[in-house]
């Protein structure tokens, strides 16, 4: 009997810990974090422009669409935006990782590595805002371009897309996140 109660209490402790672990993170609503990522994406563009040799091979990458129509945006719900953002971030993550394999220039490689880690952090932020998409189907490189994606043929274009994506869709989503709206109101 005593061992049983002990076991139960231990299980309860684990459940409590587990519950705490899976509980949502504190929402990260400060957009300065995203601004920091945006600046680093811009730094990669600058390094790219100044790169001489070992700057990656000409390769096509599938990247998300970045255009934002405010009129359309106003009518779009947050979850739809969240899906779009999450998909886009995954695409960018893949594309950047592929690009990095062809880059031998160390400053550029470091910048790309930084961008990849930033994208991972953004995923965490979206998770904290409870905006992480439940299901994301990542198209592979060989898949044809969907309506949500576009194709770029060089690393500079890829970096430009990344920058635009972060400044536009990701930022608008974060600023419109309900978790942050609740805090502000």
């Amino acid at each position, binding site marked *: 009997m005593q061992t049983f109660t002990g076991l139960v209490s231990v299980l309860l402790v684990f459940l409590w810990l587990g519950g705490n672990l899976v509980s949502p993170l504190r929402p990260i609503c400060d*957009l300065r974090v995203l*601004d920091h990522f*945006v*600046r680093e994406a811009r730094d990669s563009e600058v390094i790219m422009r100044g790169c001489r040799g070992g700057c990656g091979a000409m390769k096509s990458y599938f990247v998300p*669409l*970045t*255009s*934002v*129509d*405010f*009129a359309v945006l106003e009518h779009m719900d947050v979850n739809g935006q969240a899906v779009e953002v999450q998909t886009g971030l995954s695409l960018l993550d893949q594309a950047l990782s592929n690009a990095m394999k062809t880059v031998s220039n160390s400053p550029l490689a470091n910048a790309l590595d930084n961008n990849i880690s930033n994208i991972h952090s953004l995923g965490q932020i979206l998770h904290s805002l409870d905006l992480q998409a439940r299901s994301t189907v990542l198209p592979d490189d060989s898949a044809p371009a969907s309506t949500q994606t*576009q194709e770029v043929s060089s690393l500079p274009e890829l970096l*430009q897309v990344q920058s*635009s*994506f972060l*400044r*536009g*869709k990701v*930022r*608008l989503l974060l*600023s419109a996140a309900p978790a942050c709206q609740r805090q502000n109101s």
Partner: protein
Amino acid sequence: MYLLCKWMTKMRSNRLKIVFMLCLAFVTTGGQHFESKVAQLLQDETEHIKCFVEGKDLTCFWEEEEERNHIHDQYTFTYSYEKKNKMACAVSSLYLLASNKTILFCKLPKTPFFTTLDVQVLRDGRMLYTRSLNAENVLFLDPPRNLTVMSSGKEGQLNVSWLPPLLKYMDDSMIYEVRYAVDGSNMGKVEVIKVSTRLVLLGLQSNTRYKVWVRVKPDGVAYKGYWSAWTEPVFGVTPPSDVDPLIVLLVIFIGLILCLLSLTVILSHHKFLLKKLWPDIPTPEHKFPGLFTVYKGDFKEWMSHNNGSMWGRSVPVYTEELPSPLEVLSEVSLTSHGTSQREERKPVEEDEEKESERSDSGLTDRWRDPPHAHWLMEQLRALQENPESRSQSSLLQSHDTYVTLNQGDNEQQVDDVFEETLPLQTLFTTAGTSSLGTSHSDLGSLQQSSGSGRLSSQSSFEYPNHTWPPKGPGYAYMAVADSGVSMDYSPMSSSRIAELGKHRMYTNDYKNEIFPHKWPLSGQYIKSG
């Protein structure tokens, strides 16, 4: 705008209403600032196609070439993004009164942001201008709204606040610039502030009227753009300095009191203070009365008038020593010549030259008779052994002052004596005791100093009723007196003489300490003064 509308009405009269509506639409939706923005960019932007985003819409315009008469229908504006098909945009024209220029512009109906736009201007089917841009980078915001300037109550401060331009999604991406200047002055300062729409201006002049302007721009992270136009100036007055007039009055009052007190102190003790701050240069005038005033610094004159009174006081006597007769028993001369000298009991007033002559002759005579000295020495020894003979210093007693010569420490004193250059000095420096015993040493010294040849002339030794042995009278007799201004005779008692024997001192007090070293002449034995 009005000109455009007029022109359009003229050209298409059957679409009057539509055109009129369009004109109205342009006027209302174009915003108050449209023309000013266009005018501004016309100056600042270097690209052929100048684009800006006002609100949510992108407007691109270009300057029409003057020689062209045809208007917008020759021009075609196309744009594309994300590799989509090109889309066309309606071209309009606008005449700017201020710069006397005509521009052609196109406003995109649905502006895509965060993507690269490729815009082209075609004229008669041929590409004229082309440009690639991102719409979020050419934001041209309206000026801030509701600018207010208020006094904060604190000295030199003003509270400035405003509202951001009406724009969604961009409230947290704005940066403001506040310009302020004293009313009427052209020199202004600028403060930059991010995101916040409030600012406290510090370090302003008190009780001064200030003009304040504000403008806005995207911060450059997510959105970029141009500086907006300045707002209309708003005035504010800084509060006056909060120095209490009561405190000022009190400070002035206390200052006055302190001044009065210090003046009073200075006036009452001005002499003392003057002496301390500006001390007198010491002058010796008080020691020399009348030297500077009467005799005009002529010291000789003054000396001649004030001779007697001055010297007796403080100035030590130098030229003449105080006289005192010194009777010294010198080397015995057994000649009659010496005897006659011996019997002389000379007062100090005796003529010294005469004595010196006699003494010299006697001296020579005496020196010829060294053997007789031996007898005298024995006499002296006898006296020495018999201290009571001192009582017979009544022998020495006279009206004259005598210096007795000691007999102790003979050897040393003999040496000391030899160091003296002058014979009389030698006699003086030996300590005085009574009796002939002293003279014994002197005799010795005299004997030995015979080489000098200048032995003192006379030494007298007086016995009132005493007779010398027949052979004896050869001793020299000398009365010596110190030269001096005044004479001082004091009868000498035996006790005094005894004292003298014990103490090395002169019988008379000389103030002149240099005397023994500066006995001028050996011949100057006695000087009556």
